[in-house]
């Protein structure tokens, strides 16, 4: 592999990382809102949030991407490839992250909240001091897991015209007749990226345990 081709692979890995990380971030924000809506006592918030989760968790990401790219223009919203990929990945991961967060919040022991009521903490204080920190600690491993899943699932966005790591490996494998080499390099790059994500997750978990974060 010439240095120029390796550079192309690295650039493509950059595309994969940027789009995946942006999607995970946007997905986390949407996921927090959806989770809050799902835990709300108001049915008109709970219902749409439940519908959102079941749709984006129930329809394959590949189908979601094709729908966004090919169907949105029909209602006058022509989204460029990168935007379609971002929307698809973000909404899909938002549904999973909302459920991860909900799992964290519903796992907070009732006894703690009853005790908090007893000592007279306000609902906001209970959220800030008890529910959020516990839920966050319980959710971080699932969040790291989800980030790794999205990084790998981002290989699907080539169907809407984003040339990321897998697609670049396919293109170069075809033009150089060296499939083994390029797929091995692509696999190695994915592994390295995901190792960094997992390492970052471990650091965050340790910091949380020592009470440095939240």
């Amino acid at each position: 592999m010439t240095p120029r081709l390796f550079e192309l692979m690295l650039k493509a890995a950059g595309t994969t990382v940027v789009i995946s990380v942006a999607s995970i971030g946007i997905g986390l924000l949407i996921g927090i809102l959806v989770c809050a809506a799902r835990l709300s006592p108001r049915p008109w918030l709970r219902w749409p949030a439940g519908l959102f989760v079941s749709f984006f968790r129930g329809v394959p990401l590949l189908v979601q991407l094709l729908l966004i790219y090919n169907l949105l223009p029909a209602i006058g919203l022509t989204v460029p490839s990168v935007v379609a990929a971002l929307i698809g990945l973000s909404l899909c991961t938002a549904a999973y992250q909302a459920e991860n967060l909900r799992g964290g919040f519903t796992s907070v022991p009732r006894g703690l909240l009853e005790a908090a009521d007893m000592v007279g903490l306000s609902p906001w204080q209970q959220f800030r001091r008890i529910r959020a920190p516990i839920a966050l600690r319980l959710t971080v491993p699932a969040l790291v897991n989800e980030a790794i899943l999205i990084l790998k699932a981002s290989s699907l966005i080539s169907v809407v015209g984003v040339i990321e790591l897998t697609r670049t490996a396919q293109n170069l494998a075809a033009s150089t007749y060296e499939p083994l080499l390029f797929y091995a390099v692509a696999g190695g790059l994915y592994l390295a990226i995901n190792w960094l994500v997992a390492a970052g997750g471990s650091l965050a978990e340790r910091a949380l345990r020592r009470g440095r974060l939240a």
Partner: protein
Amino acid sequence: MNKRLFVQITLGLGLMMTTPMMAQAQDALARVKAAGVLKVGTETAFAPFDFIDAAGDHAGFNVDAFAEVGKELGVTIKWVELPWDGVLPALEAGQFNMVAGPATITKARLERYRFLSPVAEATVAILRRAKDDAIKKPEDIAGKTVGAGKATAQLAQLKTFAATLPRPVEAREYPAFNEAYADLAAGRIAAVANSLPNIAFVASKQPGTFAVVLPPFGQKSYFGYIGTKKPDDQPLLDAVQAALVKIKADGRMKKMQEKWFGTAFDTPDVAPEPSF
């Protein structure tokens, strides 16, 4: 309160849908000229028309031909690269102005799309392993497994031809022809059916691995670039058609064909009525 919200949402959605329609007062040609950019959808796994070369650059007949079209129209070309089975749906969705491909001009496609002036012959032939002497003529694929690209006219031609053979042919469908070539080299399939310019290029690049089986078995057909039949797109497609005809008339097309296919084709200015 809920009723007011409903009215607001309805109004909002309505506005979203009508705004782009108002913006379409100009036709596609005027918009492309104003933007200075012609968006072309394609697949980069169709050498020698469209591929990523060994240096990692987007290359091929399409790149050269559209550079000339861009010069004629005074616009730059923006390529959108998709898997082939996603290209035509995305064209209809309006993700780009036209499709390079090119695609074989067939009856079924003509009903739905407008084909521009043909750029090469598309008649289908068989590619085999160089060392495999069992296939000497196209009919020898009887009883064997033959690969072709998914959703391609070449696959349809293969199936039609296979139906005339004494023993059934297993047609294996691939996301792109590149994967079919790889499986042929690895011995997983006995042959690949694709248009002559494509497989002649593949065989010339790797003479020790592949060989072309002559004559072609399919019916005579042509490759053309594709646009929609939407009235809004027609002025733009007329302009591209005129550019292609001019490029043919002054000999530039012939030069590009010789560069990429090793031979020039006599292609009519207007796509002829296809036989299939």
